[in-house]
């Protein structure tokens, strides 16, 4: 079974490029160029250099001793929270800004929900001196004020998405409309492993540095490259795609994807796409998505803005469908408690997105000798307000 994208842009039955003709020239050009550009020695050199000197890679693979004792298994944390800007998102924006430069683009657009991808995009645009416009739902702008301020300090314009539910899905619609209106000078930096081919594959490749490092880091620490399990949370699926990538075809490695159940999978307030979704088309991609019987896309809910997306990247839809990955849904409450556990036991305050991944330790039992690598996709600074309100700190 192949878990990577095929030459037509599909992962099994998922993927493709369901885009209006207005987007065809840009997406097609990107499709023809992206692998060539990524293979250029000068591109690789610049990408690696920036990841090292600017982002601070490699990110540590940390053996979490107290967490391991509590859950009686060997827990490792991949510390993407220590990256510049505080999450894995920057791995992708560094890659895409270098891509945009080589494609001759001068103006950058992006969508953002919690603001992490917006900040990571604004950061690389400042670094490269490029114009940056970030679309953000009006509701998210109100509830993520610090990240809005960060983007502004970094020189980006933050434009409110006023349509629909005024959150991430609508911000993505607005970014796509901007690209339709500005086809010549603009590159769209999508923030997750979603969108029309080749985006899911390109974003996955940029994020795959995570699993590449896990392999040699684990070899150093444990004498073997392959853990028994890799675990990551899934919004659109970029940190998970990067964490899984080099293990997809290693049969002995179990893959666990953690979705946001919100108030509960059956509560009507959830973002557990693998359970609630059906095959359909969202943002140019055929994948699992939450929708009405009539094919209207529905609103997801999660306490974590980064997991609040009604679809899931096509690679993950394929991993789900083929049974290659185990999918677990974690509620708001479980995630918040897990965030507290990690803070108390390891001195690390995680992003609420990442807390979802750790929460499975309460219910999904691992054997004492098993090595379980969790991707700690981001730090919790951006979520302090939510933690304060939830725990009445």
């Amino acid at each position, binding site marked *: 079974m192949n878990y990577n994208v095929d030459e037509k842009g599909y992962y099994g039955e998922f993927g*493709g490029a369901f885009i209006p003709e*207005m987007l065809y*020239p840009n997406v097609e050009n990107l499709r023809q160029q992206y692998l060539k550009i990524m293979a250029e020695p000068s591109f690789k050199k610049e990408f690696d250099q920036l990841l090292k000197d600017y982002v601070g890679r490699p990110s540590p693979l940390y053996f979490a001793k107290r967490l391991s004792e509590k859950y009686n298994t060997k827990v490792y944390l991949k510390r993407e929270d220590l990256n510049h800007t505080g999450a894995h998102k920057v791995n992708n924006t560094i890659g895409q800004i270098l891509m945009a430069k080589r494609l001759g683009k001068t103006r950058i657009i992006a969508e953002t929900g919690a603001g992490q991808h917006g900040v990571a995009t604004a950061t690389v645009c400042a670094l490269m001196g490029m114009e940056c416009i970030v679309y953000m739902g009006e509701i998210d702008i109100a509830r993520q004020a610090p990240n809005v301020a960060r983007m502004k300090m970094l020189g980006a314009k933050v434009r409110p998405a006023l349509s*629909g539910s005024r959150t991430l899905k609508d911000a993505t619609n607005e970014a796509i*409309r901007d690209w*339709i209106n500005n*086809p010549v000078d603009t590159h769209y930096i999508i923030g997750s492993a979603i969108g029309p081919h080749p985006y899911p594959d390109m974003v996955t490749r940029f994020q795959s540095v995570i699993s590449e490092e896990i392999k040699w880091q684990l070899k150093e620490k444990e004498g073997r490259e392959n853990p028994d399990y890799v675990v990551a949370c899934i919004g659109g699926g970029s940190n998970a795609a990067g964490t899984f990538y080099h293990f997809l075809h290693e049969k002995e490695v179990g893959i666990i994807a953690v979705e946001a159940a919100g108030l509960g999978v059956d509560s009507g307030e959830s973002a557990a796409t693998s359970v609630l979704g059906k095959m359909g088309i*969202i943002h140019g991609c055929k994948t699992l998505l939450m929708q009405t019987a009539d094919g209207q896309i529905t609103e997801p809910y999660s306490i974590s803005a980064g997991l609040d997306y009604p679809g899931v990247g096509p690679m993950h839809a394929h991993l789900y469908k083929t049974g290659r990955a185990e999918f677990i849904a974690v509620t708001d409450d479980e995630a918040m408690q897990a965030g507290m556990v990690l803070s108390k036991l390891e001195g690390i305050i995680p992003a609420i997105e990442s807390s979802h991944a750790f929460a499975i330790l309460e219910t999904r039992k691992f054997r004492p000798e098993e090595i379980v690598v969790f991707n700690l996709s981001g730090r919790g600074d951006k979520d302090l307000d939510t933690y304060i309100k939830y725990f009445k700190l």
Partner: protein
Amino acid sequence: MNRIHQKLQEGKKILSLYFTAGYPTLNDTVKIIQDLEKNGVDMIEIGLPFSDPLADGPTIQASSTQALKNGMTTSLLFQQLKDIRKSVSIPLILMGYFNPVLQYGVEEFCKKCQEIGIDGLILPDLPLDVYQENYEAIFKKYGLVNIFLITPQTSDDRIRQIDAASDGFIYMVSSASVTGSQDGFGNNQEAYFERISDMRLKNPQIVGFGISNSETFQQATKHAKGAIIGSAFIKFLTQKGVDKVGEFVKGIQK
């Protein structure tokens, strides 16, 4: 013979109007279609509302959102249209996004269209290659004309490919924009209209996006076979309601 083909053979320039089904109120659909035909409109695009219309500007987005709030669904639209051919004879085209069609079942959808007397479909996010590989045979089986878009950025090669795959007309998007983004055409559009006209395509072209009055209609149809008005008509419906449709059409035809 498909009504679209018949219409395209007439000598005149085609005035086509787009509106969103279920807007301004749920049951306006049939009345709007009948009034448009009575007032001399040549062809109608009936918009199937979608929650996330990527290629549409604020006017059509808002009408779609409202139509969905009003309760519009694919099945309901089919039900509203079931007797439409008793009173209306101009070509009718359904325009929407692919996901609702996929969920209805593409073959079921096409079959229903044929039963009702729908002549063609415009599904902007159903790409050419997917259509040809998976759906062309189904569309043809039910006598539906599939209409593709081209834009000023579409390469000559791609336009030739689309022309070869088309059997009706080509929807020529006037500029790099979502719907309703501009008023008036400048030199760029003139050059683009001429470039396409000089390509001598097998399919006639009908221009859409940015046409709002008789002036832009004249400009657009100088080279092209016809033009489609969408956002401007929706705005009119919003402001003046459904009883004055004739007034809008007269304003374009003057």
